């Protein structure tokens, strides 16, 4: 169990760091698109590591003690929750960005904006 606990602690440390960075980036960046970068990407990456730590713990208990159905079910359902989180986050970020651009929100400090040029034509 010692090795598994160490792996879990390392994963949890990485995940909490990225979650904190994502939430702080929500306050540091100037406009909506860059906030979307920080929030969506960093929290998704942190959530991957934290849920992986849960999977490692439950799979370790399942493998070591054996014949313990609740931990096996928890392992499989945590994987499903991770897959649902990844798919919905990517699609939701795309939908939010498109809605913001069509409602007329300009990207701050932008060097070039091809989509605006296309809409002006």
């Amino acid at each position, binding site marked *: 169990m010692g090795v598994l606990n160490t792996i879990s602690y390392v994963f949890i440390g990485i995940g909490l*760091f*990225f979650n904190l*960075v*994502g939430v*702080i*980036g929500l306050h*540091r*960046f100037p406009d909506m*698109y*860059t906030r*979307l*970068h*920080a929030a*969506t*990407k*960093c929290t*998704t*990456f942190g959530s991957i590591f934290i849920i992986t730590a849960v999977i490692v713990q439950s799979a370790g208990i399942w493998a070591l003690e054996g014949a313990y*159905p*609740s931990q*096996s*079910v928890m392992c*499989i*359902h945590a994987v*499903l929750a991770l897959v649902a989180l*990844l*798919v919905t*986050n*990517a*699609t939701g*970020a*795309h939908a939010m*960005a*498109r809605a913001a*651009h069509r409602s007329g929100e300009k*990207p*701050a*400090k*932008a*060097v*070039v*904006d*091809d*989509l*605006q040029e*296309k809409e002006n034509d």
Partner: protein
Amino acid sequence: MSFLITATVAYLIYLVLTIGGSAVLLWNRAELVIGAVCAVAAGALLKNRFIGKNLRMLNPARWFAFLVYLFPFFFAMAKANIDVAYRVITGRINPAIVKINPNLKNDLSLTILANSITLTPGTLSVDVDEKTNELYVHWINIDPKVLKDMPRDYHPICDSFPDWARRIAE
């Protein structure tokens, strides 16, 4: 045929969700029967929505390519996240929205590419032109070399992801 595929996929998802319901076997009998009824109902209702005309995703080589694709994808994702964390801490940003043309013809491959771009290197797919299959990408730190010619080079944004998407879904 499309009814059969939809019902099978729905039944597989149901089986994964209800695993371990019984202590003796993996599933007990009532769950199997109810799942079969629900899967037939879902297949009858959604057979025209779930799958299109072509059946090329039934090829297991494409699924194997998708599993192999996860590894370079995860490395690019880790690199991008460290980069974004660096930009959050220092505050150095240089954003832009650029248009790229990845030469994909299929809806599924374009979806895979757009989701990959959203989850990786400081880039975020904002909009798609449905006639020409061009993507509009918001980039947090633009490379000045890309700005020279008008059909933008997509290699700095997404390395070889269009090739992988073409291999998986076309």
